[in-house]
């Protein structure tokens, strides 16, 4: 809301300087956003919160100043002189729409349309409003004075002198004063005569009934339209105006008559004519303002400062609250009609506090100490992040909504269709991905978003593209309105499959060294059928790893190979050993032995390793994979050689050669029995 310094002086003396004024206003709730010099005047821009529509007029701001500076308001009740004819003989109003609560009309005959006087033009110019003609300017002026929107119709264009406030017909066409044609719907409210709509209620007038140079009779509308209806209409038609802005924030229906009189008074003064006697006033009467009790003790209980009772009473009274009774420990007041936001005791606490001054609230209260806890999930996340950072992965953050092709590309956690947003996210895709589709599906996997991030980096010739993200995915569940929203850890990397695999193994190991992690075969179109797998911990799925398939590379336009991973964070957290427990470490030397086994290609490493572990017995400390190689000329095409090392150690003595030989023999015969493994010497 921009207010004119000069204009404010009509209602309150401004003896303070500008900086002091805007500072006091800021500190009492009207945040100063800037001031511009316009001619001899100052345009002061104040931020008005949505609960204070009363400050969307100069009078409202002046009231605040009058309270802050303890200086009286100068406000008169407008009493424009009226002529002989009776309005009821000339004009009638009927409300047929539930979106109009009250409608008042006054009629002025014999006006002379022309330019506004300079003082009026200047004030409108200060607040950035164009001057149209004296009548239209008068309606605007009063709106910016009291906050009540008004509209002037050329009464000659209102067929039969009858105003009908009704819902628009479906697809009813309407030409507004901006000369554009709008298609209306049944949720919109129009002000019509017997035939056509003359205005969209509270939003904009029409060209047909517009006040022009030839207009001689004007009907002044001061009405109360429903805030939600006005907002919906203005938004759907993109016709936001100072009028709709005020209706959206709700107006003071008690002031309709004041505003109507004031507007007529001004028109008579600057455009001449005669005011027809009386006023058409139909619809609901304003409700009785609520009676509120403020217990003085609540001020200290909630604000933490003591405010003298006399100061409290004076503030309430200055703000226009009507003090009904003063008790020992409480005051009973009635709120003024323009303060619809004051309905409860808590609202009065705020009023007294803000005028008394929040600067008097101390910032060195003794707040008691309290213990706080780091959640287990934070601790687990720390460990996961530590591994990833050490491995050179940078953390990414990608939007939670994705376009359909990405959503379809990979959804390992659920087969349920994704949730869809009523609105897409706009402007979140890089130019190269603009035609991929609307970004309106809640993602079920982090992988597609990370592949897009990979593509962007690849396109920008970045090297070492290794990214991870920890974020929620949204998995719809049957019969539950709120989806399951587990946290996942996603990875994308340009390094090879086993490097990335090793990172996952390290993550799991860092959380719990004892956890058995296995990789099982999996099938996903996004993943290479060989270089992929499904991670399993204790029968539960931890996640997936895989190199992006040819199809994935095509969909995400990747030039190089990328390996992706997605892990369930909850399972990682559940597996975490929060506080590691000590085990005695043997003080004796270990013994290492290498084994070079020839086995069929179909024997996987992990099966062989299991056998070695099983047959190695108590003395086995570690089994390490060394390498796999093939010698087709010696072993044939179906065989491979696996070289592995075992480390043996005893807790109570140095191992003897004999003990070592026994273990080695057990391993060799075990592998031979279970995998037909042949030891190469």
């Amino acid at each position, binding site marked *: 809301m921009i207010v004119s310094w000069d204009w404010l002086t009509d209602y309150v003396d401004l003896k303070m300087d500008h900086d002091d004024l805007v500072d006091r206003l800021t500190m009492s709730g009207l945040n100063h956003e800037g001031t511009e010099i316009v001619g001899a005047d100052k345009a002061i821009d104040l931020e008005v919160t949505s609960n204070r529509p009363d400050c969307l007029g100069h009078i409202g701001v002046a009231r605040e100043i009058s309270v802050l500076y303890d200086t009286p308001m100068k406000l008169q009740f407008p009493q424009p002189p009226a002529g002989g004819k009776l309005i009821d003989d000339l004009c009638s109003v009927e409300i047929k729409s539930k979106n109009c609560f009250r409608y008042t009309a006054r009629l002025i005959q014999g006006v002379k349309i022309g330019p506004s006087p300079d003082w009026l033009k200047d004030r409108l110019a200060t607040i950035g409003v164009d001057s149209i003609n004296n009548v239209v300017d008068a309606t605007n002026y009063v709106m910016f004075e009291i906050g009540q929107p008004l509209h002037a119709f050329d009464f000659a264009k209102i067929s039969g002198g009858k105003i009908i406030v009704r819902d628009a017909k479906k697809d009813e066409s309407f030409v507004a004063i901006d000369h554009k044609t709008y298609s209306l719907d049944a949720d919109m409210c129009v002000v019509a005569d017997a035939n056509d709509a003359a205005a969209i209620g509270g939003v904009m007038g029409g060209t047909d009934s517009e006040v022009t140079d030839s207009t001689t009779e004007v009907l002044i509308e001061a009405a109360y339209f429903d805030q939600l209806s006005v907002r919906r209409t203005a938004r759907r038609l993109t016709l936001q105006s100072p009028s709709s802005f005020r209706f959206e924030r709700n107006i003071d229906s008690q002031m309709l008559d004041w505003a109507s009189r004031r507007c007529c008074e001004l028109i008579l003064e600057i455009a001449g004519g005669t005011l027809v006697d009386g006023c058409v006033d139909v619809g609901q009467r304003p409700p009785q303002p609520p009676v509120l009790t403020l217990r003085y003790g609540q001020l200290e209980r909630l*604000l933490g400062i003591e405010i003298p009772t006399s100061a409290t009473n004076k503030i309430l009274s200055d703000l226009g609250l009507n003090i009904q009774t003063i008790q020992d420990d409480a005051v009973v007041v009635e709120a003024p009609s323009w303060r619809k936001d004051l309905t409860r005791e808590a609202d009065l606490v705020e009023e007294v506090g803000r005028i008394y001054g929040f600067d008097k609230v101390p910032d060195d209260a003794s707040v008691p100490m309290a213990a706080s806890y780091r959640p287990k999930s934070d601790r687990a996340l720390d460990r996961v992040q530590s591994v990833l950072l050490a491995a050179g992965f940078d953390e990414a953050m990608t939007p939670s909504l994705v376009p359909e092709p990405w959503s379809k590309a990979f959804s390992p956690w659920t087969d349920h269709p994704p949730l869809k947003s009523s609105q897409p996210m706009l402007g*979140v895709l890089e130019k190269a991905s603009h035609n991929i589709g609307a970004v309106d599906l809640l993602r079920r996997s982090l992988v597609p978003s990370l592949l897009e991030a990979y593509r962007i*980096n690849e396109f920008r010739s970045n090297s070492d593209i290794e990214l991870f993200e920890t974020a929620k995915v949204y998995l719809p569940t049957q019969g539950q309105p709120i989806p399951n929203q587990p946290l996942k850890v996603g990875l994308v990397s340009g390094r090879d499959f086993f490097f990335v695999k090793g990172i996952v193994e390290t993550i799991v190991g860092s959380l719990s060294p004892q956890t058995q992690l296995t990789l099982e075969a999996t099938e996903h179109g996004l993943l290479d059928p060989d270089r992929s797998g499904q991670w399993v911990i204790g029968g539960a799925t931890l996640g997936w790893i895989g190199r992006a398939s040819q199809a994935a590379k095509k969909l995400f336009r990747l030039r190089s190979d990328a390996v992706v991973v997605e892990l369930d964070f909850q399972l990682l957290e559940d597996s975490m050993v929060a506080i590691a427990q000590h085990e005695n470490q043997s003080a004796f030397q270990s013994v290492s032995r290498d084994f070079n086994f020839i086995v069929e290609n179909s024997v996987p490493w992990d099966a062989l390793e299991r056998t070695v572990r099983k047959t190695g017995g108590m003395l086995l400390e570690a089994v390490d994979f060394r390498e796999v190689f093939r010698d087709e000329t010696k072993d044939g095409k179906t065989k491979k050689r696996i070289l592995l090392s075992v480390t043996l150690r005893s807790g109570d003595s140095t191992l003897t050669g004999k003990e070592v030989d026994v273990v080695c023999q057990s391993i060799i015969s075990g592998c031979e029995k279970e995998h037909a493994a042949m030891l190469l010497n």
Partner: protein
Amino acid sequence: MSPPAMPLAKFVQTLELLTEEAQNSFAQASDADQLDESRVEFLGAKKGRLKLIQKDLAGIENSEKPAAGKSLNATKQAIQQAFDEAKKRLLGDQDKVVRDPKFDATLPGTKFRMGKLHPITQTINELKDIMGRLGFTPAQGPEVEDDYHNFQALNIPMSHPARDPLDNFYLSVAGKHSGAVAAGEEDNPTLMRSQTSTVQIREMERIDPPIRMVSLGRVYRPDTADWSHYPMFHQIEGLMIDKSVTLADLKTVLKLFATSYLGDEVPIRIRPSFFPFTEPSVEADYYWDGKWVEFGGAGIVDPNVLKSVGYDPEKYSGFAFGLGIERLCMIRHQITDIRYLFTNDVRFLRQF
């Protein structure tokens, strides 16, 4: 089975012979490899000749064993000495400082690349840390919320502009034909949460006072992305509820928070504002670099909010405050476009 008996004289003779052979062998070695071969032959730990001869000790008469042992030790020393001399001859004195003119210590070290946490995460961690020291424990809540927790329980009436369908990501199940039914009950549709205040409600529904919690996370509003807007961003929200929590407590905590965050004692001020879920509502500013900088919104929890979670507003009071993380993060790192945060260019990410 005991080894065959051996006379002492023969044992000593064998040792003398071995000493001589070893001394010759070490003396003749012309490089380190040759020397090492000789070392293995004579001094090898398993099959070295000295080791083998040592086994004969078992065959010596007990009465002669001390003399035999003495002789063996002398042999050991002599061979070792011969080896050390040869080694010194071939490799130089180990204790002497040898300069290597080819070595350049200023060549770059072998770097390993550490990853970086996202600047938003770094900011969140910093704030979480500060709040933790002030006794606030992190709490979590769902990002897809229902209307009740996002609006109704927070005292945001139907008429409030924040509830406009165009200003929220309301949800339905994809794949249904046009006019798809909104997910959730008709009067309680689901949406991407537009503020982290929802976690306040969830937490107060879960536990009884006293409460000191801090919630952090993603929130969503359908603004078109530009340099200062993004349809997804992060908020931090603090909540404290107890028997007599006041605006003075709020101002005190905010001051401690700002001072910790900025690393220096800063003046703060609170000025009236409006949020449906607090009454009074305030904006907090801190004074930095000669001007007041907006910190975030705060206030005393509205009695309607307390009632909606079954707390008695006559018995309990509390404060809540919320800050936008992106703004703090961007000021902190001088990031000029919010979209950089979500493009994930690794060169951008590695700066922080």
